[in-house]
């Protein structure tokens, strides 16, 4: 197990290094530099600016500096907002995105498991086809359509919720639903198909033959095994929630990381784009890392096959 964890950790660090280098060189590959657009700056000031941001140094030295700063969690200054560091932007915005994300994940898992179970237990009945159709719909409708639809119907037309902002606890409801719909639908489909597979397995027949009650079989035997594929989905789900949060925050006017990300791209604020990209990447990779570890812990078969394979 320790070896497995170490290997995954090493991979994660390597990937972060590759992405950090790639972002650096990609941003350097853009023709021109951020100060070229300013009109007629005196040469002395321009040189001063270059020196301030280290742009007068050779590329390899800039790269080393950048890497050195990264190790110290220093992502540099925003190029468009004066005197604001990228780290402080992340500090300010992350709390909103985190709250939204965590609520959405809880809702997605709870609703997904529930509907998946309902569907599997009513296999080939109306309730099954109905939930499965809703789930396909949930996977298919892009989240910006969901978010703007919810906003229009419940915010503008019915006026049940405020249209934008996060000032009131009820303000969380619409954005969280918009974020959770797609992962919830996906989890429902996963739970349904793995539950159906598990229910026809031999050990369920054995459990029934032993005379165990339906509920014990469901919870102790079936659900525990059916939940395995759902565990692997935690990584991709984090990715979904992050891309979703970029959209949902923009639509509902929430000042989280996603909104800063969209703005940084529209303003071509390169240091902010780089910083936020790396930050998102680290979160995603941590989520994937934890998924791998969790999977190794939940499913003993994984460990065995790893040992055999070396």
């Amino acid at each position, binding site marked *: 197990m320790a070896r497995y964890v170490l290997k995954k950790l090493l991979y994660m660090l390597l990937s972060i290094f590759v992405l950090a280098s790639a972002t650096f060189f990609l941003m350097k590959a853009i023709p021109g530099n951020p100060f070229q657009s300013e009109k007629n700056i005196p040469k002395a000031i321009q040189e001063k600016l270059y020196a301030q941001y280290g742009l007068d140094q050779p590329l390899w030295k800039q790269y080393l500096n950048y890497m050195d700063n990264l190790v110290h969690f220093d992502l540099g200054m925003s190029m468009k907002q004066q005197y604001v560091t990228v780290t402080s932007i992340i500090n300010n915005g992350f709390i909103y995105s985190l709250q939204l994300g965590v609520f959405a994940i809880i809702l997605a898992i709870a609703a997904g498991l529930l509907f998946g179970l309902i569907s599997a237990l009513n296999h080939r009945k109306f309730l099954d086809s109905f939930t499965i159709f809703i789930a396909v719909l949930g996977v298919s*409708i*892009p989240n910006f359509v969901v978010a703007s639809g919810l906003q229009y119907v419940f915010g503008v037309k019915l006026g049940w919720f405020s249209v934008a902002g996060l000032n009131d606890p009820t303000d969380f409801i619409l954005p969280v639903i918009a974020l959770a719909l797609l992962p919830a639908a996906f989890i429902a489909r996963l739970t349904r198909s793995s539950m159906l597979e598990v229910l026809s397995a031999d050990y369920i027949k054995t459990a029934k033959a032993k005379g165990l009650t339906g509920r014990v079989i469901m919870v102790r035997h079936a659900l525990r095994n059916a939940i395995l594929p759902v565990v692997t989905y935690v990584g991709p789900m984090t990715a979904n929630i992050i891309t979703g949060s970029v959209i949902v925050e923009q639509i509902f006017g929430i000042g989280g990381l996603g909104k800063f990300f969209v703005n940084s791209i529209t303003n071509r604020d390169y240091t902010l784009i780089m910083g936020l*990209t790396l930050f998102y990447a680290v979160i995603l990779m941590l989520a994937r890392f934890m998924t791998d570890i969790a999977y190794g812990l939940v499913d003993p078969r994984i460990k065995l096959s790893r040992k055999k394979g070396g």
Partner: protein
Amino acid sequence: MSEQVFKAGDFEKLDKSEKRSEPIVRESISAWKDAWIRLRSNKMAMASLLVLFVIVVLAIIGQWITPHDYQTNNLSATNQKPSSEYWFGTDSLGRDMFARTWMGAGISLQVGMYAALIDLLLGVVIGGIMGYFGGRVDEILNRFCEILYSIPSMLIVILLIVVMEPSMFTIILALSITGWINMAWIVRGQIMQLKNQEYVLASRSLGAGPGRILFRHLIPNAMGPIIVTITMTVPSAIFAEAFLSFLGLGVQSPAASLGTLINDALKAMTVYPWRMLFPAVLISLTMLCFNIFGDGLRDALDPKMKK
């Protein structure tokens, strides 16, 4: 029991008529035909296929069947509601939304299809090489894929488009750079299962080279999962393009994709909600049909997985 010894006289020739004593009465059904029969009985999947066909046809001819084209501004008729003159209304510059919606659908579909096509080519070749040769080659390529895959693909795509100018070509390119890995892994897994089958041995003993075995024997047999993966790639590429449009990194005006149309409409949604309606319904319907059809195709091609 004593050992039986056959002599030449023990055998006699059968009459020719006996050869047809047990004819196969029913027409033989190939695996593809079998899959088609299963698919045809899936009403939802066939309905999706029909809807997709209609969408594709309208995406091709849609902008020509109205008297208005997609890029002419008409500042005396901005933000019109749908009417007999402008079937889907007009946008903030008075451009006809019917023409723009179908042209947008065309661009979104093209992005999805080209991205899927490039994924297919790269994925099949690289996955095929990985699976067929195995060993060192497989290990190196697999490590490379794992590292590339572990970097969140959407972030790479965004970075690439920020650096390159956004256009249909760069969006397809950026989507394909990470998209092929999934396909490669699926092909690799299939080839690894198939390559020890007897028909491969037979072909090899007849002197076939790796290229012939791979492309004439192995890939055709792995076609089922490959096709299913393609149908799933198209909607995810369409969604990815819409997401990029949302960030302002989609195709640039006057051209439009469904994503850019939705993004434009979003800015004025509280005032002119109908501008949002048609592109949003169309993109959802397209993705829904691809998903349902993909599910049906998977059930049809792989009966083992059918639940």
